């Protein structure tokens, strides 16, 4: 099953189980979503639960919050994560603050789905990885799955969490296939997955970079360097315990993500490792990240994103 199908299955499963769940967005009805994630849901659940609306991210997200507060868990679709700027007040100032400011009287079971869409030649306004902004918002969960099984389990957890969740998907991962349990098994938010075990270097990564990191680890193994690849799965909460335990074992850390390097998720991840495992470190931590610049179109876009080769170079450097 592909990751797009896994998310679709999670939504369908939970919508059958919980008749209050509503999906809002643009192009999510008969069209099935820009990337096909909603395929068949409109046919099964109808207009009332799979609701196409106008292109109005701010009001759509606000309406989603109101539905969620009223006890109808709502999934709001942001077609590209770049467009989330248009909904950011609703997410940051409203959804994430409401429970606290009202002394615990309300819950906001809102899931905002937003895919990272890059390397498709769509330019600076359609290629960003903006997850770091939202890690910085207490009250908001940030989930970043990398494979179909995790996407299903984490979506089930997100829909039942009771807190607002930003569910960051990745367009390159949608067609990637993998085994997905048919059972109803939510994956707890805030626990990383060891994607590959190794004794020499920890590589902490998530979403679209998990696979390049695994490939780099295979190459490195041929050179006698064993890497442990951590798929963080969620950025808020960050599984600091799991991260520190791994770094304490290996003594070396590389953090890899496509988001820009400056104030990217890697800064928080690296510092968390330093705070917990400083005494075990045998080499400086290396960040393999996106370039600090707007993303170009055409041939140039290959030069701003990290890839397997840059991760491999970092492994060699940290082991030197």
């Amino acid at each position, binding site marked *: 099953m592909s990751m797009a199908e896994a998310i679709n299955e999670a939504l369908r499963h939970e919508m059958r189980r919980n008749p209050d769940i509503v999906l809002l967005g643009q192009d999510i009805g008969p069209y099935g979503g820009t990337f096909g994630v909603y395929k068949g849901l409109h046919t099964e659940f109808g207009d009332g639960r799979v609701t196409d609306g106008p292109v109005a991210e701010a009001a759509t997200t606000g309406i989603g*919050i*109101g539905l969620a507060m009223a006890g109808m868990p709502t999934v709001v679709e942001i077609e590209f994560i770049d467009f989330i700027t248009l909904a950011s007040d609703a997410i940051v100032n409203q959804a994430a603050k409401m429970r606290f400011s009202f002394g615990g009287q309300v819950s906001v079971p809102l899931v905002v789905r937003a895919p990272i869409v890059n390397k498709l030649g769509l330019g600076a306004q359609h290629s960003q990885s903006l997850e770091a902004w939202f890690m910085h918002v207490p009250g908001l969960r940030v989930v970043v799955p990398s494979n179909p099984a995790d996407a299903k389990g984490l979506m089930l957890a997100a829909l039942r969490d009771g807190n607002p969740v930003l569910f960051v998907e990745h367009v390159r991962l949608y067609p990637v296939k993998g085994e997905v349990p048919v059972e109803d098994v939510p994956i707890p938010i805030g626990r990383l997955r060891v994607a590959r075990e190794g004794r020499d270097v920890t590589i902490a990564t998530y979403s679209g970079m998990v696979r390049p990191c695994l490939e780099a680890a295979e190459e490195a193994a041929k050179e006698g360097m064993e890497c442990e690849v951590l798929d963080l799965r969620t950025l808020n909460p960050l599984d600091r315990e799991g991260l520190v335990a791994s770094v304490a074992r290996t003594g070396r850390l590389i953090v890899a993500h496509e988001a820009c390097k400056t104030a990217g998720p890697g800064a928080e991840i690296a510092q968390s490792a330093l705070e917990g495992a400083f005494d075990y470190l045998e080499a400086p931590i290396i960040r393999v990240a996106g370039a600090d610049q707007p993303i170009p179109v055409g041939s140039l876009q290959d030069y701003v994103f990290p890839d397997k080769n840059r991760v491999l170079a970092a492994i060699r450097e940290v082991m030197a």
Partner: protein
Amino acid sequence: MKNTPSQNELSGWYRTMCAIRFFEEHVIASYREGLFTGSTHPCICQEAIAVGCAAALEPGDPVFATYRGHGHAIAKGLELPPLMAEILCRETGCSKGRGGSMHLCDVGREFWGTNAILAAHVPIAAGMALANKKRGNGKVTAVFLGDGATSEGAFLETLHMVALWKIPLVIVCENNGYAISVPTHVGKSVEDIAQHAEGFGLASAVVDGNDPLLVHEAMARAVERARSGGGGTLLECKTVRWERHSAISAGKYDNEEEAMKWKKADPIPRFAARLTAEFGVSPVELEALAAEARAAADDALAFAKESPLPDPGEVDAYVYA
């Protein structure tokens, strides 16, 4: 539609308007005494809107308001002591002393909170109204906002979606003539805020916001339209602002000329005069009602002052569900 209010009900309105006024006076004095920090945005001179609208709603109808929302909370039936305690940031406050003056909430009374980002609560209120429409329970949601907020995208996007989906939401704009320092004629392209509704195909009305009977009548029509499946309304209530935007605003409007404007328009003496002339409520009875309101506001302040501060060990108690 609700029937014409009885003399008894009208007396209750008067008492509530007075309670809001005395409550706000205590809030301002408390702020000046340093009993709480931050700021506060009094609704002095706008009490008729809160009371007239609340009287047209059922207890089960959800209400959303803004930072200038103490009056809406009181009119919705929230008790004064926990409101004052919230403003003084005490554990006994309606939001457990975490939200303060701009984040009052009582979900049990369908008061879904006051909000400090202009117009951000308008789509949220629309979502609540949409949920109730889906449930078919006949509830009508009301959301209050100021004229300044009507230039925000969230407001205009929501007008469109309320019209498009026939959402049972009454959007009440309290037009007090100023967005902080910018007068409406400088900040708005239209004479009446209600004109914004027309382009979206949404019903609208304009009413004198300083007469609770007129407000009630217009609100009752809007509520009836929403309850009977006719969709939302943008109701503009023309009012006058108390001389300042907030307790910390620069004193630019703190002058005699502005003060005279609201004092002439003051809805409380206006309503008192109507109650005596048209509804046979004697000045003595009015005085007694005001005295009850005064006592309630005094008690609320005393309760708040005596209430404990929140436990620092519980500072992060409500961040996550």
